[in-house]
């Protein structure tokens, strides 16, 4: 029997136990993770190109970071709210 067929036959052995919320959080963190990377990467580039605009760039950077981060945080809180 091939390995795949064996896996298919023994599916009951691969039950997931514990909270699915942790997987949900992992999924929720992908998008904001990429987004925050882009925001700070571009922000640092902008500051390097135009150091005199540091104040405005930093403010907008943190604003963008806060808006993006909210998605990950909702993903973090949801398992606690709906987990029980």
């Amino acid at each position, binding site marked *: 029997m091939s390995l795949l067929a064996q896996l298919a036959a023994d599916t009951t052995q691969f039950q997931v136990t514990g909270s699915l919320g942790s997987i949900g959080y992992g999924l929720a963190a992908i998008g904001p993770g990429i987004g925050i990377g882009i925001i700070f990467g571009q922000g640092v580039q902008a500051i390097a190109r135009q150091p005199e605009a540091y104040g405005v760039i930093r403010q907008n950077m*943190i604003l963008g970071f*806060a808006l993006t981060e909210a998605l990950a945080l909702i993903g973090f809180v949801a398992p606690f709210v709906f987990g029980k």
Partner: protein
Amino acid sequence: MSGDVLLASAAESGCHLVPWGGAAQCGFPAPDTTIFDFNTLWQFTIAGITFHVTKPMLILWIVAIAVVVFFVLAFRKAKVVPGNMQGISEYGYLFVRDGIARDTIGKEGDKFVPLLFTSFFFIWVLNFVGVLPFFQIPTTSRFAIPVSFALLIYILWVPLGVKRQGAGAFFKGMTMPKDVPAAMYVLLIPIEILSNFIVRPFTHAVRLFANMFAGHLLIVTFSVATWYLFSPSVIGMLGSAASFTVTVGLTGFEMLIQALQAYVFTLLAAVYINDAVHAH
């Protein structure tokens, strides 16, 4: 396990990975959300409603009084050449006025500086008590508190927008972005209503709450691990020391996040007020 119970059990229990001193071995007592629940310290009844005062509530009052007393003392006898306390307070004031109010709202922002200034320093200190010995619970990690702050901002900026721009112009500006093909409005208006009037206040509160909640949970997890791994053996010493180092590092990181989240909350409040004051 409530916060009080966790504290008591950490002080006396002999729950370790490697049992020693006659204690039993047990699994890792991972802290869960119940560490944010506290016993009622004092309760009183007004008009048939019973109020339960818990540790976060008590901290809320103490912080409110402390912040008021600090700034009254700092500005009571304001001098042209400021002393230490007045100097620090003026620096904080200028940070909020120039960095948040004027940069975001513009010239009109000066009117909102008292609100933004109070919001920034009150929330910062409420967050900061999370790493302060004996307090050790960020008050904003109780969801009701950020919710009430976010609601306060929400019921400020929506009526303000209606008052400044008129109901029609304000809601049109908030829900119908300009320079978009007319057919797109079928899709855009529901999305804009959802994002500007429902998701916006919700994320405003959740952002502050979840950051403080997650940070506190992390610090507690590693503090518990420090005690759990501790035993007079090589693995116990190394594991415990590593967990303790992480706890100290996380405490430093948390202090950064606390200030950042207070800033973000205030900045977003200013952005929302700007939406009300200036048409899109």
